């Protein structure tokens, strides 16, 4: 039991940490490409400055994404050996394909980051294209592994052993498409609003120059498009959960009893002991309608399974509210931005503050969505096939490794924030390099830029 809790926490921390960099690794290359593309077309210096700044950020963030991802690959086995014994042959193929995507991403990122002077402008831009594509592919492929855990296919269980293994069927599990779409949109959204927040902050600080306005605008185009599409994909996702994991849906909505015409509960904090949700706003028949498009449909409640097999209902419910609430708030703030821009050709301070907040909300929604997915799957590590408790490693001392990892990640996060704040000072990269050169006096002798 001890081991189980520690292992779950170590997994959650590692995944939650990696997720931020993964999202940025998917979104930033796209923004970088757009900015550099605009520069190639218009030859306006601001676009080149933005592209170079984002490239620099990508360089740092990608490395952290790579090392934290490596940790995850080991941890799948370190923390859950029986799980990997069973699942390795089934989800491994997705990871193998993802491996090729990693290669392409790392190779072309090397060319892109270090090739500014060595490649012709067009060739340089073209090197960014595979980075953006393989970044997205990495996320999509790893989602196949995760959606298989939610909806396992491609094998039959005989006496606790998986037989009849069909890796292609496992890879192409029926939940993959919808979840991958939702995840990819979420990554673009989270990245775009993080970037928008930086430039909105700069504008608030009075740097009302072209550089900041263009940076904000590019991020807002991507962010708004993704944000508008997200509720649609979210609706598909919720109906998928209704079909494949009814207990998870019941936990998300705090639906304790099975009933027809189930209400939608917005907000509130579930009181599991009393089977109530204080402070929630109830919309009659709302849940039935959203899940099935029929207001009178019967929704399976948590009472359909023994209470010992419930996930942590309050956490799942609140996380779901955070995700949906953040998504809707972001849409509102984005629309306000475009409206003000269109009507007044400028944006008020309130709108800018809201965009700074959106940067936080985007990440919050991303992490909250994963808590819904992963905590909502409990007590199963492979839904209805293997219990998390049966999958944990027998090795002792996970509290030590957990504590160590938390410490390590805190140190990394602090350094990273410090570095990124210095990077985001609002000056284009070129000037920064000049300043560094000037400061390092005598060393400025042999300038060669790779």
């Amino acid at each position, binding site marked *: 039991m001890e081991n189980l809790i520690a292992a779950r926490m170590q997994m959650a921390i590692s995944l939650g940490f990696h997720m931020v960099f993964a999202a940025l690794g998917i979104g930033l290359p796209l923004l970088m490409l757009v900015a550099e593309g605009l520069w190639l077309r218009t030859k306006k210096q601001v676009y080149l400055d933005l592209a170079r700044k984002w490239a*620099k950020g990508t*360089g*740092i963030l*990608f*490395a*952290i994404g*790579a090392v934290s991802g*490596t940790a995850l*690959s*080991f941890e*799948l*086995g*370190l923390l859950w*050996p*029986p799980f*990997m*014994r*069973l*699942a*390795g*042959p089934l989800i*491994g*193929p997705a*990871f*193998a*394909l993802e*491996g*090729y995507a*990693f*290669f*392409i991403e*790392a*190779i*072309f*990122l*090397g*060319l892109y*980051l*270090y090739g500014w002077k*060595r490649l012709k402008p067009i060739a340089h831009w073209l090197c960014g294209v595979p980075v953006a594509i393989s970044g997205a592919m990495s996320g999509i492929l790893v989602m196949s592994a995760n959606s298989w855990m939610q909806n396992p296919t491609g094998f039959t269980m005989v006496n606790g052993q998986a037989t009849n293994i*069909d*890796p*292609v069927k496992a890879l192409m599990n029926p939940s993959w498409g919808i979840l991958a779409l939702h995840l990819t949109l979420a990554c673009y959204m989270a990245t775009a609003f993080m970037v928008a927040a930086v430039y909105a902050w700069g504008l608030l600080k009075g740097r009302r120059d072209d550089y900041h306005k263009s940076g904000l605008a590019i991020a807002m185009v991507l962010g708004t498009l993704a944000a508008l599409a997200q509720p649609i994909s979210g609706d598909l996702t919720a109906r998928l959960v209704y079909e494949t994991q009814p207990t998870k849906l019941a936990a998300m909505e705090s639906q304790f009893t099975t009933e027809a015409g189930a209400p939608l509960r917005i907000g509130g904090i579930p009181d599991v002991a009393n089977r109530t949700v204080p402070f929630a706003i109830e919309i009659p028949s709302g849940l039935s309608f959203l899940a099935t498009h029929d207001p009178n449909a019967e929704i399976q409640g948590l009472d359909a399974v023994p209470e010992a097999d419930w996930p942590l209902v309050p956490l799942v419910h609140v996380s779901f509210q955070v995700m949906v609430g953040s998504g809707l708030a972001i849409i509102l703030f984005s629309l306000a931005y475009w409206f003000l821009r269109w009507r007044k050709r400028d944006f008020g301070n309130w709108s800018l503050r809201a965009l700074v907040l959106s940067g936080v909300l985007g990440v919050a929604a991303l992490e909250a969505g994963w808590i819904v997915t992963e905590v909502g799957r409990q007590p199963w590590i492979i839904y209805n096939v293997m219990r998390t408790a049966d999958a944990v490693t*027998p*090795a002792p*001392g996970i509290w030590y490794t957990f504590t*160590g990892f938390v410490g*390590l990640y805190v140190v990394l996060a602090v350094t*990273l924030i*410090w*570095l990124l704040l*210095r990077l985001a000072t609002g000056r284009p990269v070129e000037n920064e390099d000049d300043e*560094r*050169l000037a*400061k*390092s006096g005598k060393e*400025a002798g*042999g300038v*060669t830029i*790779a």
Partner: protein
Amino acid sequence: MSLSLEMLTAGLALLALTAYAVLAGADFGGGVWDFFARGPRANGQRRAIAEAMGPVWEANHVWLIFLLVILFTGFPVAFSALSVALFIPFHLLLVGIILRGAAFVFRAHGSEEAGPQRVWARAFGSASIITPVLLGMCLGAISAGEIRISGSVVQVNYFTAWLTPLSWACGALALALFAYLAAVYLTLETSGELREDFRQRTLISGGVVVAISVLLLPLLVWQAPRLAENLLSVRALPVLVLGVIFALLSLWAVLTRRFAIARVTAVAEVIMLLWGWAFAQWPYVIYPDLTLEASAAPDATLGFLLATAPIGALLLIPSLWLLFSVFKGRNPEAGEAGKMAGGRR
């Protein structure tokens, strides 16, 4: 022995391990020389190392992930057992990998004067030393027979299984080989006095490699008699002999300043040593209880891995060629930066 799917998959894994050793190994070696940068050109040495690593180290790192993925997809039973038995060294390895990578970018992207940057600069060197040692120790541990498996239960002493003298020697050998590779590569990416610095380092680490190898022989006979015996069998011995020949050739090439030859022979040396070990280890993944065959995934999965590999290779090979030809081909600029000990990017 006929070629079965698990043999082919194991071959793919060995290929990934080899690529990781000769490519990423040199990046770790670079970190070692960063740690030991000395003398009037210490900064120039560090800069040459950073420039050589910068564009390629992340691509090189992916080989490890690829190896891991082949292992858990193709040999899930072995992967699970290893993850249990080597719980501690794998975690330490991760700390090393995380710190090394993070320190490299933190250092490269901040200005060197600021306080935390100095700490990260040290972390880069230290992590580059610790990680190869741990990698070598893990390889040592799976050959020595201290990890026992019955059914799905792993019987192991979590501390002593990987802390044997043999493991230590394997760790030291890995470290010395990586440092040697890096120094050899760097002689080709620098010129003038810097090149002399790295030539000297090549000779030092080459000497250390020879010394550790000699030390390893009695240890093998004592602690891993089966491995020692197999190393001397027809399937491994010719490979090992080739390895020794390449080792001597590459030392000779460095002595006589034929650096391009030194690079080719040093790479060949590392490949032969690894393959010699792998052929001797065969058919076991974890000696003495787990063979490749017993730990392999069903044929459908192995088939998937093998069928997609050529497609992956088709994507990878031209991309890698492009990367290395842009940054490592006739590369006057790297030489320039290296020559001017004070030059900076």
